[in-house]
């Protein structure tokens, strides 16, 4: 900054002080750097999607979703079904627990108890999923633990623990964002608090909770590491047997088949990744629709 006694202004008929060229250059560099940074985000995202499409689409056959895997070839029907069954189980067990927990934290817990309980799930959300998978294996699957063997229940329980923090947080946050006036209005009308909670508060918090459930679905479909040692892998369609029967899931072929020498195994790996990609896109679109819908219905 240079010393100036009276700054020349437009009003005095003067001119704007000349901008030092180095500031202009620095600003241009700043814009260029930011554009490069943005390109480095959008570029890999498009590249990734393009790469999956380029590898999977030319070989795509619809029989992939109608036949089971046999060894390292065939289709992925049992893996798709297995992933669906696991996700459904996770939504019932993990989703149920977390919605109740979020409800309790937002509506009933107070003071120090709330802070402690909340930090419990915040810490849990930071534990790497492979640690949960390993402990799930040691405690539930292994013969030195409960000896359930690979199966549906260990997988559902481990993935439930992984997603509980996300749904709990979403439920708690969206309940806390319900305007106080709604509760006061219900109270003024003489509606019992529990009834108001169910009919009014919960209803207006629903979009947020559903968004949390979507995140949970995306995670439980996309998890690999914890499932490898809890679900196992199977060439047969899932039965609803809870333990003792391995169950297939969609991320397994991607991880296991991609570098096998057999061309059919590789193609199966790309097919599975295409299915996962389509699924993630569907979840993102659903999330956007819910946000748009709830914005329109907010007032």
């Amino acid at each position, binding site marked *: 900054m240079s010393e100036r006694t009276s700054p020349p202004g437009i009003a005095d008929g003067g001119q704007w002080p000349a901008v030092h060229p180095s*500031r202009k250059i620095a600003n241009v560099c700043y814009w260029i750097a930011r554009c490069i940074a943005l390109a480095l985000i959008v570029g890999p995202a498009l590249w990734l*999607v393009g790469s999956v499409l380029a590898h999977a689409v030319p070989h795509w056959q619809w029989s992939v979703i109608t036949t089971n895997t046999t060894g390292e070839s065939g289709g992925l029907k049992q893996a798709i079904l297995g992933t669906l069954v696991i996700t459904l189980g996770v939504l019932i067990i993990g989703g149920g627990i977390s919605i109740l927990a979020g409800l309790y934290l937002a509506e009933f817990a107070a003071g120090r108890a709330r802070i402690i309980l909340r930090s419990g799930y915040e810490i849990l959300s*930071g534990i790497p999923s*492979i640690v949960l998978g390993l402990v799930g294996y040691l405690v539930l699957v292994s013969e030195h633990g409960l000896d359930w063997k690979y199966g549906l229940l260990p997988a559902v329980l481990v993935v439930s623990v992984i997603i509980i923090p996300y749904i709990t947080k979403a439920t708690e946050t969206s309940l806390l964002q319900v305007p106080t006036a709604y509760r006061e209005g219900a109270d003024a009308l003489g509606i019992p608090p529990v009834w108001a909670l169910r009919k009014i508060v919960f209803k207006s918090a629903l979009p947020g909770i559903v968004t949390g459930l979507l995140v949970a679905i995306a995670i439980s479909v996309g998890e690999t590491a914890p499932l490898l040692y809890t679900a196992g892998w199977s060439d047969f369609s899932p039965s609803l047997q809870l333990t003792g029967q391995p169950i297939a899931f969609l991320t397994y072929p991607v991880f296991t088949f991609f570098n096998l020498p057999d061309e059919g195994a590789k193609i199966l790996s790309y097919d599975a990744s295409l299915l996962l990609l389509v699924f993630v896109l569907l979840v993102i679109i659903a999330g956007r629709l819910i946000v748009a819908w709830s914005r329109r219905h907010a007032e």
Partner: protein
Amino acid sequence: MAVPALPRGGGAGTRPPRRAGGSAHPLGRWLRSGGPIRALGLAGAVLPALVLTGLLIELIFKAIPAIGYSGLSFFTSSNWQFGAQYAAPVTTNGLTHMQGEAFGALPQILGTLATSAIALIIAIPVSLGAALLIAQLPRRLADVIGAFLELLAGLPSVLLGLWGAVTLGPIVAAHVSPLIADSIGRVPGLGGAFGRSTGSGQGLFTSGLLLAVMVIPIIASTSRDLIRGVPVLTREGAVALGMSDLETARKVTVPWVASGIVGAIVLGLGRALGETIAVAMVCGVALGTLPTNLYGAMITIAANIVQNLDTAITDPMDVSAFAELALILMVITLVVNVVATLMVRRVSSTALPVGRGL
């Protein structure tokens, strides 16, 4: 104006009794006042703390034999041997184990830290630059770019791993690594770490790049939300003083949200440290050696657990060593995440937990 009087009723007798009133049976009152939901909710809310405690106890309990067997060499040695699986077990110091077993986890621990460091070195400038740009763009365009961030954050890590192994790795080996070796590698003193023998594209550098792609959406979306939260008057004041965009960012916007951004970076670090599948697919799986340069094959703790647990399953001592690995990983990420939570909580309140998912 005379307000018509509301029909008031004669007295207490005409008012309908409250349904959740005090006269009912205590159990009925408990049921009607939301008691069951409250009890179930409390159980659900306590569960995470119980799970955490259970995790720690189980891992410590399981890790004891390996701690006794390896001691401090777990952290200082690079020699990792699963032992002779089919020979008869032997006993040293009262601990039964396979012949020739050794657990030196130094390469894995360093590998975990090094890949995360590379990821952050790349991710911090990219995410911060992009966030500063996105916050300045028109809302509709920013929403479109936000969709890309959501996509990157929501993609299963196994897809990123596949892309890294099949597409990115070969390109890194063929073009990017030689470029670095020819530029930074020429600087005197850096030839060893960045120099020739640029590897197969499976190793430290590719893992770091891939982790950067996974961490960027976390840091970028949190930073974007924080920057959007800077009061508009503050920024307008800077503009009124004649500050350029760069000066506004450097002197007003970024300092305003600095602690939140540091929190987001530490959250991203937590994600990078624990990432498993993607790294397992591109790290080159070198269990017993340290990489000689930036491009060498290596492994991280998480990748080792997922790649080699099936080898280890049959031997209790191996399983115990894996429990010790998981314990180390858990403690590192715990510390990182507690720091991050404390830093982010003070400033930001994003609707969904950052860290994973959408």
